[in-house]
C-alpha cells in the first residue's frame, strides 16, 4: 500500500505529541523509539533509487524527535540516517524473506541510535541502563519483523 509522505508526517506529529507522556508510563522507558520505527517502516527495502523523499522524511522525523528529547537535531539526524544506512547494507547480505533475518536487521539498524543516545546520556549523566537499551533494540527488531514493506515503483505514492 502506498502512503503519501504527508500522512507519515502527520502520524509522526501525533506520536511526537503523545510519546513523551507514553515514555513516562510504568514501562514506558522500554518502548522503542517511535521516530525510528516510523522511518524504518515508511522507507521500504530495498532502498529506493531516489533518496530525496527518505532524506526529507528523516530530517522531519529528526526535527520532531529533537523537539521533545535531549538529543540535538544533529544527533537525531545521525541516528536515523545511520539506521537507514545500516539496514540498507545488511539487506544486501541477508534476505528479508525470513522473519529471523528481519529481526536481526531491525536490531542492528537500531544499534547506532542506541549508541548515540548512550553517549549523550553518559555526557549529561542521565540514567540510561543497558536493560532499557536491550529492550528497545529487541522491540524494534520485533516490530520490523512483523511490519515489512517492499519497494514499489514510486515510494510514497503521488507524483515525484
Amino acid at each position, binding site marked *: 500500500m502506498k502512503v503519501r509522505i504527508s500522512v507519515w508526517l502527520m502520524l509522526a506529529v501525533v506520536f511526537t505529541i503523545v510519546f513523551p507522556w507514553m515514555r*513516562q508510563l510504568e514501562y514506558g522507558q522500554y518502548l522503542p523509539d517511535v521516530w525510528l520505527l516510523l522511518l524504518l517502516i515508511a522507507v521500504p527495502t530495498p532502498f529506493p533509487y531516489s533518496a530525496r523523499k527518505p532524506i526529507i522524511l528523516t530530517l522531519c522525523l529528526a526535527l520532531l524527535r529533537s523537539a521533545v*528529547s*535531549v538529543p540535538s*537535531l544533529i544527533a537525531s539526524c545521525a541516528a536515523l540516517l545511520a539506521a537507514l544506512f545500516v539496514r540498507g547494507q545488511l539487506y544486501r547480505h541477508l534476505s528479508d524473506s525470513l522473519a529471523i533475518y528481519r529481526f536481526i536487521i531491525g536490531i542492528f539498524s537500531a544499534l547506532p541510535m542506541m549508541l*548515540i543516545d548512550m553517549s549523550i546520556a553518559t555526557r549529561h549523566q542521565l540514567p540510561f541502563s543497558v536493560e532499557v537499551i536491550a529492550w528497545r533494540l529487541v522491540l524494534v527488531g520485533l516490530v520490523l519483523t512483523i511490519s515489512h514493506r517492499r519497494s514499489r515503483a514510486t515510494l510514497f505514492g503521488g507524483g515525484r
Partner: protein
Amino acid sequence: MLFLLPGAERNRKKLLTVFAVVALCVQACFPLPLIDNAVHTVFGPLMRPITRLAGVYSSFFQRLPTADVNRKQYTSPLIAAERKRGHPQEVPGVVWLEVPVLDIDVASGRMKLGAGDNFYLSPGMIVAFGKSFLGRIAAVEPEIAFVDLYNRAGQRTGLTLKTVDSSTRAVCFGRGFSGPAVIDWLEDEKQAFSDAQLLWRPRPLDAAQLANAGLHLGVSRAEGSFARGNHGFVVEHKIPASAEGRVYVAASAIGESVVTEPVVRQASAQRILLGGGVFGGTVCAVSASCDFRPAVLSDHSRVCGSIVEWRQNWGWTSLLTPSAWDNKAVFLNDGQVQLFDPSSALQHELYTRGGVGVPRGLFLGKSHNKLFAPSVNLDVWLAPQSVEVMHQ
C-alpha cells in the same frame, strides 16, 4: 570527468553517504557547540511549538506540585556559615577583603578568585580562611586573580614550628603534584618534632601585624627514615571545604568595598514539558527568556536539576535527587562546611558546591529526598565566572 559509469556513480554516492553519516555521528557523540548552536538557532523556533504542544498534552496526565505563593528572597545558610567561620582574626592596620572563589585545584596548588584589579588586588597579598593560611596572590587580571597555595610547586612559605616548650623558625617548600609541602629549612633542627604546630610567619615586606593574626598551616609530619638518609618533615594541612566558597585577602589599603559578591545570574523560567521522548521522566524541558546559557534549574529556591542542553531560549534539564549530586554537594555540620559522601547513612541538608557555572550555596534538599517534579514557575541560574574550569 564528463560522465561516470553506473557502478562508479553508485560507489561515489555510497562514499558520500558514509562520509555524511560518519560526520553526523561524530558531531552527535563529540559535539562542537558552535555547530549545535547554529543548527538550533535556525531550527529552534520550529521545535519549540512542538515541545509546547507535547507539554500541554502531557500535563493532562501529570499532577503538579502545589506552588508556594509566599516566595521569599533566596538567602543561603551555607554562605552565612562560611562568612561566620571564614573571617580571620582582626589585626590593626589590616583589612580582610572577602573574595569569592571560582575554582580550586588543591593537588597543583592553584586557586582562581572572582576579583582582580577591579577590587584592587595585587600580587603578593596573603590569602586566608579563618585560621588557615592558604597562599599568596600570584597573578592579577582585570576581573580575576590567581592564588598560589602554600603547596604550589616552588612556593616558599615562612613558618614557626611550635611545640609545648619550644619553637623554631622554618621555611616550607611546595611540591605540587609530587606531594605535600616539605620543610626544607629549619633554624634549629634539634627543635623539630613531628606533630609540631605550624604557624605562618610573615615576610619582611608583609605587614608586621599579620604575625598576630594567628594563621596556621596544620602540623608537621615526619617522612622517610634516618637509616636511608631521606628523613624530613612535611606539612600536613587540609584546606577547609568552606574555602571553596570565599576566602579573605589581607590588604592595608582598600577601595570602596571590602566584600565582592560572586556574579550570579538568575531568570524566571517556565516548564514546557515534563519528561522527554528518549530519556523519559528524568528530564524536563523549560523555557526562559534569558541571554545566558543557564546551568541549573530551581523551583522556589530548591534545585531540581542541572541544565544539560540549551537551545537559545529553551532547553532540557536533567532532574536529579539531592544525593545524585554526589561530590558536587556540601552540607553544614555544626557550622562547618563538609563535602557530601553519598555512602553516608546520615541525613543532611545539602547545598550546591558551586563551580562549572553552578552558583554555590543553592539548596538541594535533604539527602534522602526523592526526585520531585518541578512546578510551572521556575528559576534558572548561572554563575558565569566559574563556567571556565581552571586548567594547569
